[in-house]
Structures are given as structure tokens and as C-alpha cells.
């Protein structure tokens, strides 16, 4: 029963991800005085892409063809680790947060390989940029996450969230730092505006788009879907760790429905914040990304320090 519920939760996660991307696009359009497409537009795009014939370069190896499937399934597996509407599900309890980071790194590794595989200049450039950014984002993310896991004294996300919920409202300075660090890392990792621009194919600004330039058809659909999943994954991570209220602790129908409403509300608000920040800030130069991410690392480090200094029992 619980396993069935865990599978259902993952399927729900995967099916909701394009909706979140569409909603963010809507918010951005409203803020920029443009006419917004329907929030369901990403579904239509994905459907259309699956009907198109994928074109594969004759120089591409087998890696190029299987990479989208690996990327999508690794991201989907990462999603299973995160509690979406209920805590204490078997899949979430079986793997901890370090496995989650590992899954994301695995997906990124294959994305980068696929970008390099065709041998175009863009692919190589995007791949090297992606690796540079991720090598700085990952320590910052782990630092922020260690702060939380030290508070809950478990690296398992599900148990950590349960611990935070049972504690009730406690103002922790370390969580403020960890939240800020995780937001900065999420912006960098999902390729949103101060770091990368998801909307353009302008060669100077591309990171993620440069790598997937050669993809088409259902391969492109899978990669797009995986990146939407990753965006939602970070959103859920931020919403459910720092504001876990509303998640279902018991597995009754009403609690689950309430949990679903809560997470959709939280993600909706986060999406509005993201859209506002993307409208307010300009994309920064690539060489300033290092400063941005080292600031995120510093915040994570301060969170860890203030956990030890301010909160640890002695």
C-alpha cells in the first residue's frame, strides 16, 4: 500500500513539473506586460515534440541517443527521494539526501557527455560552463543541507522533515542562512536568470541550452522534461524543508489532499517570487558566477557555524 502511494507520489511529481514551468512563464509574462500563454503550454510542447522525428547527426555515437533516457530516469529517481505530499513513505526512507545529490550529479554527467559527443563548438562550451558552475554549486548545496541534517541528526530527508514538523515553530538562525544558500544554489543549478537564461539561444548567454542544441524530437522532450523536473525538485526541497507545514503525516485521504493543496500553494508562491526576481535582475557575466556561488557557499558555511555556535547543545 505504502509503496503504491510512493509510486503515485512520484508520478504526480513528474506530471506536475511542466505545470510549474508553465506557471512561472505565465507570471513572468504578466510582470513584463506580455500576453501569457496558458499554463498548460509546456504539456502541449512536450506532446508535440514526442510526435516529431528526432534528427541525429551522423557523427553522433550511441551515447548521444541513450543520454536523454538516462538523464530523465536519473532525475525521476532523484524525485522519488523527496517527500512531496506525505512524509514517511518507503522510497523516501530508503535513500538519503546525499544519494539525491548523487543522482543529480549522475544526470548532469551524462548531459555533459552528450553535449561533448557531437563535437560542435557550442556543445563543448556549454559542457565546460556547466561543469564549472556545478563544481562550485555542489559544495554550497551540501553545506546548506548538512546544516539541516545536523539539526535533525539524520541525513534522511523524510525523517528530517518529520523532525522539523514535530518541533513546531522554532526560529533557527542557521535555517535562515541555509535557506538563502539553497535558494542561490537552486537558481544556479536550474539555470535561471542571474546565472543562465532559459529562454534564449543567444550564444554568449547559453549554458544549458548550448548543450542540448543538437537534440530534437522525443530526445529533446525528455531533456526538457528532466530540466522542468529539476526545477520543481529544488522548489519542493526549499518549500518542504523550511516550511513543511501542511504535509500529510498520516496516510488518510483527507490528509493527503490537504498535503497536495499545501504543496501546490507553496510552489505557486515560490514561482511568483522566482518570476519577480527574474524580472528585476539582469543576467550576470559568466565570470561573476564564481562570486555568486562562493557567496552561496559562505552562507552555507555561516549556517553550519551558527548551528554549532548558536544552537548545538552543550
Amino acid at each position, binding site marked *: 500500500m505504502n509503496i503504491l502511494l510512493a509510486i503515485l507520489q512520484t508520478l504526480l511529481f513528474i506530471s506536475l513539473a511542466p505545470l510549474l514551468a508553465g506557471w512561472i512563464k505565465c507570471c513572468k509574462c504578466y510582470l513584463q506586460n506580455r500576453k501569457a500563454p496558458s499554463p498548460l503550454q509546456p504539456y502541449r510542447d512536450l506532446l508535440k515534440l514526442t510526435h516529431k522525428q528526432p534528427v541525429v547527426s551522423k557523427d553522433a555515437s550511441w551515447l548521444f541517443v541513450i543520454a536523454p533516457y538516462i538523464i530523465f530516469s536519473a532525475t525521476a529517481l532523484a524525485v522519488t527521494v523527496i517527500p512531496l505530499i506525505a512524509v514517511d513513505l518507503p522510497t523516501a526512507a530508503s535513500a538519503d539526501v546525499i544519494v539525491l545529490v548523487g543522482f543529480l550529479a549522475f544526470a548532469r554527467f551524462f548531459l555533459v557527455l552528450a553535449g561533448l559527443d557531437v563535437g560542435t563548438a557550442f556543445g563543448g562550451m556549454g559542457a565546460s560552463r556547466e561543469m564549472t558552475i556545478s563544481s562550485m554549486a555542489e559544495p554550497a548545496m551540501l553545506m546548506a543541507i548538512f546544516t539541516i541534517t545536523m539539526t535533525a541528526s539524520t541525513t534522511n530527508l523524510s525523517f528530517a522533515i518529520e523532525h522539523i514538523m514535530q518541533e513546531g515553530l522554532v526560529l*533557527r*538562525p542557521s535555517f*535562515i542562512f541555509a535557506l538563502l544558500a539553497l535558494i542561490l544554489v537552486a537558481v544556479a543549478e536550474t539555470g535561471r536568470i542571474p546565472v543562465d537564461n532559459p529562454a534564449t539561444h543567444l550564444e554568449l548567454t547559453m549554458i544549458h541550452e548550448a548543450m542540448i542544441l543538437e537534440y530534437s524530437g522525443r530526445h529533446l522532450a525528455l531533456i526538457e522534461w528532466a530540466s522542468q523536473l529539476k526545477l520543481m525538485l529544488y522548489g519542493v526541497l526549499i518549500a518542504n524543508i523550511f516550511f513543511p507545514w501542511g504535509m500529510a503525516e498520516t496516510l488518510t485521504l483527507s490528509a493527503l489532499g490537504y498535503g497536495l493543496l499545501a504543496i501546490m500553494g507553496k510552489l505557486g508562491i515560490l514561482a511568483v517570487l522566482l518570476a519577480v526576481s527574474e524580472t528585476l535582475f539582469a543576467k550576470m557575466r559568466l565570470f561573476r558566477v*564564481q562570486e555568486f556561488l562562493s557567496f552561496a557557499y*559562505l552562507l552555507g558555511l*555561516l549556517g553550519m*557555524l551558527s548551528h554549532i555556535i*548558536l544552537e548545538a547543545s552543550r
Partner: protein
Amino acid sequence: MDIENLDLYSQLILSLAALVTLTSFIMLAQGRLLRLVFIFALQGFLLVLATAIAAYSFNNPHLYISAAITMALKVLFIPWMLRRHILKLNMHRDVEALSNKTAVMMGGASLVMFSYYVLHPIMQNSSMVLLNALSLSLAVILLGMLLMISHHQAIAHVVGFMSIENGLFFAATVSTSGMPMVVELGIAFDVLVAAVLFGIFFLHINSSIDSLDVDKMNRLNEVDQ
């Protein structure tokens, strides 16, 4: 004692202390002067909040007065004055090139650890809030000094100096529940006079070496070389 056993006011004061330290770090990395002054004002505002909460939770009404003085001086008057100087000297478009920002930030993080390490044996017997708030205010003082070392502009030095004073004020508020009123008024006037004097100095430095970059003072010599 764990943080979840403290009452909400102490948690709030600790969170504000952490945020004050964060503003010190942001100031350390800030090359634009107007933004530096704005963050300084923000730090002052967080300090005012912390003082007001301390006044309420320790039931110490004279802390409200010192909160009001801080609000008037450090949140409104001094930032306004610095801002006016920056605009008048036409420096608001300059971005100071800070050498090796990341190393300075990491140095700041180690200063936080150092201040905690120094205060730990002294405060072994006192309450947790006191120890943490004191070590964070020592960290703010040291970070203010680091700000003065790492920046070249005279205005940034003034901001660093004032943020050292912020750290001292915070330490006094949480550890002794406020200094005597006379002392506090005296310090407030000192800060006020210092701010006005700094303004005059800015004009003099600017007219004599045509810049507020204090590194250029190294070139001043009695003998022509």
C-alpha cells in the same frame, strides 16, 4: 541547553544577531558605496529591532530610548549624511575593485570562529544567549576592522568604523541589558560628532589628493622624488 527550549524572544534575538553578522559579511563584499551605506543602515535597523525586543523581553524600558537614539542616528542620520557626501563627491558610479573577495570572505568566516573560540572559556558559566550574542558581536567588531583593511575608500572606512560601534552597542545591549543612560547619550553624541568630523575630513582629503582612495596617500612625500 538547546535552542528549542528557549523562549521565542531569545530565539528572535539570536536570529537577529545572526542577521547582523550576515550584513557585516555583505558589506565586506560590496564594492559600490551607495549600496554599502544602505546595508549599513539595514544593519542599524536590525540592531534597533534586537534592542526593542530585548527591552520588551527583559522588561527594561530605558532600552527603548537607546533603540530610538540608534534609529535616529545610525539608521537615518548617518546613512543620509554619507549618501549626501557620496552624491556630492560624484562617487556613486564608482565600483571599487576589491582584490580577492573570496579570500576576504573566508577570512571573515574564520574570524567568526575565532571570536567564538576566544569567548568560549570566559563565558562557560553564563547563559547560552549571552555567550552566543557576545561572540557574534565580537565577530561584528572584527569584521568591521576587516572591512576597513580590505577597502580603500575613506567612506568605506567610516562605514567599517561605525559597524564596529554597532558590534559594541549590541554586546552592551545583550550582556548588561544596556549601559547607563549617561554613557549611552555620551556615545551617541560621540558618534554624531565623529560623523560630522568625517564629513569635513572627506572634503579635505578630496581637495588635497583629489580622491578618497586612501592608498593614494602613500604617495604623499615631503621631498619630491
